[in-house]
Structure formats: structure tokens, C-alpha cells
């Protein structure tokens, strides 16, 4: 009853000039990634409001479950815009949902900060001036693995990927970039199991039959765990280097525990070892607030809210056009270090950590890691302009 009264009072108060972020995400479809993400943005929200809010007012975030499908997400976004009068949209996880909300944002002329979706298309082919994306894209993360992959001078590569856009574009980018770096490379096998339904025994056997020198995989979550266990048991990884996108993110790595394969090259987030002052500050605050360690999603949620806050501060306004102008080229601090919002495609230069997997006390960790700055793993401006049709 009391909360109802408070809601009524809030509804009665004037809404102009207040920054209200309408946040939507597929919380019940991808909870492993999105619960930490939510904790991340809640922490940022509390910090910002504890230090006085934005433009002299408290920052407010209205959060919704987007149901995980484009149709539901568009309805939820409409509700955030028209009923809650959100000034900015933020969130989404799966690429198809991200693209749908991005397109709606362009239609409704409102700023959309796509936090999680990895698809290249959201800033390239389907890019629009209202959409900004924080996380390093599929292309960027694939490109980050290329230098190490090319260094090995392996000739015969096998590829395994989940059969949907993320896996397909990771595979296409990997083949293209590796071929550029190492023209004599050969791709001897390609396996595309359905997302979440890999027939791991058969896939591992088929890869082994192709006798590859090295393997590139973009599997994650349950598919990755099944693949790793079958591969370990059947000796697929013995003497065969493996490169796996995302496998170093705690969301996926932690579940592998004592199955963690040694020596795999991955992109990820070695949260326990990053010792920069900006990360230490973030990690301490996060652990203090949630009694839990941060995951990759936590950083995304945290940095997304700070990006909007930084844009508002720079623009000194909540107006969409001013926010767009202010976000383009904006330089800001993130737990991973300084990032820039590229004016050319509105992608942030937030990077990822590239390193190798190892087992320590029955748990998976990343070793030999380094930070790969997202700004350095991009195609030429000319290519991007062509893709964005500008």
C-alpha cells in the first residue's frame, strides 16, 4: 500500500528535464548473464545518485523484462517511452531483439544504448544515428584473436559455431581475417550445431576425423560445456590449439570448473587479476554492494549507465539530439580503462581481455592475458561507411 502511494506521488510530480532511463532486457531468458548485468547498473545508479544525481536531479531507471522476443520487446519499449516517459532506452541482449529495439528507436527518434548485443549489424548494416553500442562486437572480439592465431602458422583449421547470426558472422570474420594474415590457410571442417542443442559426441568425432591442426570455436554456455567435456574425454584437444570466443567470461568459464581445458586462447574478463586503479575501484564497490564478484555482464551494466550519465553531463541537457551529439566522440572512464564512443559508427572502443585458459584449484582462470583495446580491432573507416550506407 505504501509503495502504491509513493508511486502515485511520483506519478503526480512533474516529469520534465528529469533523466529517466528505460531499461529492458531478457532477464528470464538469459539470467546467467543478466543478473550480474542488473547488479552492475544498479550499482552505477546508486553511485551516481549518492553523488548528487544528474542535472541536479536524481537519475531514475525503470527496468522491464523484454520477454526475449522482438515483438514483446518492441511493446515493452513502447510502454517505457509512452507510459513511463523514458528519455533514453538502454539494454537488450540477443541480437534480434537489439536490432528490433534499435529500429524502433530510430522510428521514435529516441536514443538507444544497446548494452549487450554482439551483432555487427547493429552499428553497421542496420546502424542508425540513434543507436550506440557498448560491448565489443562479434567482429572486434574475433579480430582480437587473429594475431595469436596467425602466429601459430597452423595450416588446417576446423571451425565449430552455434548456428545463428553470432556464430555465422564470427566464423565469416575469422576466415576472412585469418586468410588475410596467412593466405595459405585451409579450412578443413565446419560444424554448425543448433544453439543450445549441440550433439557434442558426434561433433567432436567429426572434427577429429578432419584431422585439423587447430580449431576455432564460438560456442558458449551449455554447448561449450558439452563440447569441452566430450572433447576432453575423446582427446580432441590433445596437441590441437583451440581458439574460443567469449570462453574467458566468468559467466561461461566458471561453469567449466575442473573441465577447463588448458591453453585455449579466449576473449574474456579475468576479474580477479586486473589491477588497474579504475578496475580495483569498481571491483571493491561491486563486491561490497553485492557480496559477489563481478562478471562480464556486471561491467557492461555499470559502464552503460555511466555512459549515459557522461553524455548528459557533457550535453547539460536531456534532449535526444543533444545527447546524440554529446555521445559521439565522448571519452570516458570504464572499469576496463578509458573508452571512446566512435563518431563513425557509434560503437564504443571498450575492449576485451585476450588470454589463455588454465586450471587453478579446480577452477578455470585466464593466464597470459592482455587487454585488447576495441578501437584497434576495426575495419577501415571506408569499409564501415560503405556498410552503413552513408
Amino acid at each position, binding site marked *: 500500500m505504501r509503495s502504491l502511494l509513493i508511486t502515485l506521488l511520483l506519478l503526480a510530480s512533474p516529469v520534465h528535464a528529469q533523466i529517466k532511463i528505460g531499461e529492458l532486457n531478457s*532477464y*528470464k531468458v538469459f*539470467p*546467467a548473464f*543478466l543478473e550480474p548485468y542488473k547488479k552492475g547498473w544498479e550499482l552505477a545508479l546508486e553511485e551516481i545518485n549518492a553523488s548528487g544525481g544528474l542535472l541536479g536531479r536524481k537519475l531514475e531507471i525503470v527496468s*522491464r*523484462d523484454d*520477454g526475449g*522476443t*522482438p*515483438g514483446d520487446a*518492441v*511493446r*515493452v519499449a*513502447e*510502454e517505457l517511452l*509512452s*507510459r513511463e516517459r523514458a528519455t533514453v532506452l538502454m539494454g537488450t541482449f540477443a*541480437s*534480434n531483439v537489439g*536490432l*528490433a529495439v*534499435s*529500429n*524502433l528507436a530510430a*522510428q521514435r527518434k529516441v536514443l538507444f544504448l544497446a548494452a549487450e548485443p554482439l*551483432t555487427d*549489424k547493429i552499428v553497421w548494416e*542496420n546502424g542508425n544515428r540513434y543507436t550506440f553500442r557498448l560491448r565489443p562486437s562479434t567482429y572486434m572480439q574475433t579480430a582480437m584473436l587473429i594475431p595469436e592465431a596467425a602466429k601459430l602458422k597452423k595450416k588446417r583449421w576446423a571451425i565449430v559455431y552455434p*548456428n*545463428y*547470426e553470432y556464430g*555465422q558472422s564470427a566464423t565469416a570474420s575469422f576466415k576472412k581475417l585469418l586468410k588475410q594474415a596467412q593466405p595459405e590457410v585451409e579450412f578443413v571442417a*565446419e*560444424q*554448425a*550445431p*543448433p544453439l*543450445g*542443442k549441440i*550433439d557434442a*559426441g*558426434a*561433433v567432436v*568425432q*567429426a572434427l*577429429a*576425423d578432419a584431422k585439423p591442426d587447430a580449431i576455432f570455436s564460438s560456442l558458449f*554456455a*551449455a554447448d561449450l*560445456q558439452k563440447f569441452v*567435456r*566430450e572433447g576432453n*574425454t*575423446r582427446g580432441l584437444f590433445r596437441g590441437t590449439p583451440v581458439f574460443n570466443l567469449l570462453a574467458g567470461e566468468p*559467466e561461461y568459464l*566458471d*561453469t*567449466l570448473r575442473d*573441465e577447463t581445458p588448458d591453453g585455449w586462447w579466449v576473449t574474456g574478463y579475468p576479474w580477479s587479476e586486473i589491477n588497474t586503479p579504475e578496475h580495483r575501484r569498481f571491483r571493491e564497490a561491486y563486491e561490497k554492494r553485492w557480496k559477489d564478484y563481478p562478471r562480464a555482464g556486471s561491467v557492461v551494466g555499470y559502464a552503460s549507465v555511466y555512459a549515459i550519465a557522461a553524455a548528459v553531463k557533457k550535453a547539460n541537457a536531456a534532449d535526444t539530439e543533444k545527447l546524440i551529439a554529446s555521445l559521439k566522440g565522448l571519452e570516458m572512464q570504464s572499469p576496463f580503462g578509458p573508452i571512446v564512443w566512435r563518431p563513425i559508427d557509434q560503437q564504443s572502443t571498450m575492449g576485451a581481455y585476450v588470454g589463455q585458459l588454465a586450471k587453478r584449484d579446480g577452477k578455470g582462470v585466464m593466464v597470459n592475458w592482455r587487454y585488447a583495446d576495441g578501437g584497434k580491432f576495426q575495419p577501415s573507416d571506408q569499409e564501415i561507411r560503405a556498410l552503413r550506407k552513408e
Partner: protein
Amino acid sequence: MSGSAVLLQFLNGLASASSLFLVAAGLSLIFGVTRIVNFAHGSLYMLGMYAAVWLSPKIGFWLAVPLAALAIALFGFLVEILLLRRIYKAPELLQLLATFALVLIIRDFALWMWGPEDQLGPRAPGLAGAAGIAGGLFPQYELFLILVGPLVFLLLHLLLTKTRWGVLIRAATQDREMAAALGVNQRWLFTGVFALGALLAGMGGALAIPREPANLEIDLALIADAFVVVVVGGLGSIPGAFLAALLIGEVKAFCVALGYSKLTLAIEFVVMAVVLVARPWGLLGRPQGSGSVLAEPPLRFSSIERAACGAALAFLVALPVFSGPYAMVLMTDILVFALFAVSLHFIMGSGGMTSFGHAAYFGIGAYAAGILVLRAGAPPELALLVAPLAAAAGALVFGWFCVRLSGVYMAMLTLAFAQIAWSIVFQWDRVTGGSNGLVGVWPPQWLSGKTAYYYLALALCAAGILFLWRALRSPFGYALRAGRDSPLRAEAIGIDVRGRQWAAFTLAGLFAGLAGALFAFSKGSISPETLAVPRSVDGLAMVLLGGIQTFTGPVWGAALFTWLQDSVSREFAYWRAALGAVLLALVLVLPQGLAGLATRWQSSR
């Protein structure tokens, strides 16, 4: 492929087949005896996995498996006694809605209980390594699984043929009424069978944990496969399920082995479609005994319903005057789904043709509209007119095969076609945009306002719904119902039953397609979910919620379901469970559906 590779892949297929069989056998038993289409069977499997992962560190894997299986059996026992037993008398398929509600509740329960992260189980002690076979390494545990399948098959076979209880089960599978007439206590038989089915599902889940992490997606991923196996094998036939599991396990393994891994997206549905077209009762199934010989009373457009519809229409026309833009958005969704649900009810109710794949036509309509606008540059107005025809064409082709089957077999064939359509849309990047779908399908300028589009949706959906209702009360509709209630007599008086069914199927596809096209333009984007299983299930839920044996039920069902989904997901963190609980409550309180309430009220006066 070398000989050794062929052998190893054959063994892989056998291992998958064993796991599939465990789940499918339970499902087949339950259906055979109780006629319940148990949507929650995958959820029982998932619970078995979580329970075993949870118990393993405490008592060891080999003890955890039987204990988890028993726990799930107990759970199944309780579900049958507390829930299903209350609704056996309700219209057929209502149990489906109840088990669908269970799926929602169990998934949120697992999330709450065990957290969001996938949980990889331990390796099986004693069978953790690999055996050298034909120059390759093969996991010992999978060799063990290969043996478990046939062993369970043998035990079930002995149980069914050598024990008195088994004889009763077979009697009930073949003729429920006769078994009851001979004094078999059906209540306990049903409870026992349901618990046994749950035991098998739980054991299947528990045995899977060395191979696959317990995760929240597994329930729905598995249930479709399990249904396919049951139907391909023949409903209620355990040897059939065994054979079908082998067939599908091997086909999948060799798709992967031969480099056609992309086919595995829907290969089991292709197998099912082929089997059902060739053998309408599955591999080893027998024609179903006439399940519901009880002819329903003719649908009446009761005066209460008539008044309610008039009031609703007046309300809808006036709505934009006193409500905000979001109400327009939500009401547009409701109208679209109302048309979708009515089109499904058109074939399910009077037609007696259950469809588990009605979303296919919704999706074809949506995609046709999107493709016409984005790829062919057609004006949206034209796309809106042509798209339903594309859906009707799809229904015309699929329907020709479907109307040759009946009951659950027909429902599963519609599902197979829907999944095949889905997998084409999912993979045909150049035309359909693949998994990302089509982005930027907006209505023309003059319809881009929320209110304008709402009136368009209102006009088209109301016209569509009224047309379908009119058709039901026309000679065509009566002939359709005659074909449902007594195909032989209908044929005898000169009604071309199949022809009518085929026409009805196509007409339903046409209007589902119109709903889909309206949906596409209201969202601006569509992706393969538009024609995936959950959309079909939502349609079924709407029809059943409204009341299948009523006239206007689907409209109220669609409105309530869509509104619930929208508001519950806003108010509750565990909104799936909340939605499931509301559905369960409605099933128990209003087994005849919302509109059934009106009929009951009227007849009691």
C-alpha cells in the same frame, strides 16, 4: 569417411538414442493411458538433472541418480493427484494448458532454487574415462548409456507383459472405457502411470548430467524431441518409441558426420513428417480407438456473448478518445492475437483439427509482408493484402497432408511443418534475414500513428473474426462439424469431409496470415520467433483459456492472456511462475474457459 569413423558415429547415435528413449518412453506411457499431452515432461527431465547435480556432491553420482529419479516420481505422483485428477473430465486438451502452466512454474522454480548459471555435473565415478575403439577414443559412460536404453526397454516390456499392473496398463491403453467397465480402478492406474513416466523422465535427466549441464533451456529443447520420438514410434507404443529413438539418434549423428550439421536444426521434424505421411499412425502405432465419441452440442452464439461482443466493439471504437498511446499499442497486440486465436479455434473447435503449429501461418504472413516491403519494395498497403494469401498458400500445401491424419498425429504433423518452415526462415539469410530477421517493416505514413494503426487493426481483425464466425454458422461450418462428430455419417450424406477440412485449414491459414502481417507492421521487425513453437503454444493457451467449446471464447482468451503477459511481466520478477499460477487457477476454476462461464450462467437460469 573411414570405417572406424562410421563405427564411432554409429555408437554416438546409439548413445543419443538411449537418452532419447528414456524420456520418450515415459511420455508415451502417460499419453497411452491417460491421453494427457504432457508438456511438462521436459520440465520433469530438467528437475531430474538439477536434483542429481545438487545431490551428487553430497551422496555421490551413483546414488544421486536413483534418488533424483524417485524424487521426480514423487513429484509426478503429487501433480497427478493434486492437479490433473481434477480436470480429466474437462474438454480434451485442457490438461495441455495445465501442463503448460507447470512448465512456466517449474522453470522459475529451478531458477529460484539453483540460480541462473548452468551446472555441469560430475563425471560418473568408474566410467570417467574413454575406451579405445577402432583407433579412436569413446567415452566409457556413453557405452554404459548405450546399454541402459535397451535394459530399460526390457524392464518396461517385462512390466507390461508379465505383471498384472502391466496388463491393466495395456488394457487401458487400448480401451479406456472397457477397462473401466471391467472394474479397473482408473484413478490409481492413472496416478501410477504418471508417476512411472515421471520416474523415467527424472532418471533420464539424472543420467544425462555427466554429458550435459543442468540448464534452464533444456525443458523446451527436450520436449519437442521427445514428442517427435513418441509420435514417430506410434503413440503409446514402447517398442515404437525405441525404434524411433534409434532412427532419430542415428540420423542426427550421421548428419553431423557427413558435414550436414546445419540440417540438425530440424531434421527430426523432417523425419517425422515423412513417417507420418507414409504411416499415419507412426511406425508401430495402431489407429487410435475413438477417443471422444461424445458429440458436442452445437455451438451457440448465446445472447450474453452477443451482448458482450457488441459492448466490446463499441468500447474498442471509442477507446482512443479516452486512453493514451500505450493502450493503443497493447490493444493492437490483443486484436492481432484475437484474430490469430479465432483462426486457430476455427479448425480446432468445429473442425476438430488440433494444430500445434498454427504459428507457421502467422509467421508466413508476417514474413511475406516483410519480404514484399523490404526486398521487393512493394507498398505496405499491397503487402498487407498479399501476405495473407501467401499464408493461405502455405496452409493449402501443408493442409493437404495434415487433413489425412487425425488427433494428436495430425497435431504433430502441423508442428513438423511449422518447424520445417521455421528452420527455412531461420537459415535463409538472403531473403529472411536469418536469425536476426527483418528489420524496418513499418506501415505507410498515413498509418504510422498509433491510433490510426489501431483503427486499421480493429477494422481488419473485427472483419476477419466476424467472417470466421459467420462461416461457422453457415452450411460450411455445419458440414465441418458433422465431419468432426461423425465422419462416416457425414460422408454417407454426401459431405466431402476431407475437402471441407482442407478448405477450413486454408481459410484459417489465411486469417492467421492476416494477423501475422498486421503484427509485422505494428512491430517494425520480425524474427523467426514469429513462427516458432512458443507462438503456437500461446495460441493454444488462448483458445483453451477462452473455452474451446464456446463461440467467442478465443477472443476473451487472447485478450486475457496478452494482457496478463504484459502486466504480470511488469509486476513480478518471477513473472513466468506468476503467469503459470494464474493459468493453473483458471484451469481449475473455469475448466470450460472464460466464455464457458457465460454459457453456464445462462443455462442455470
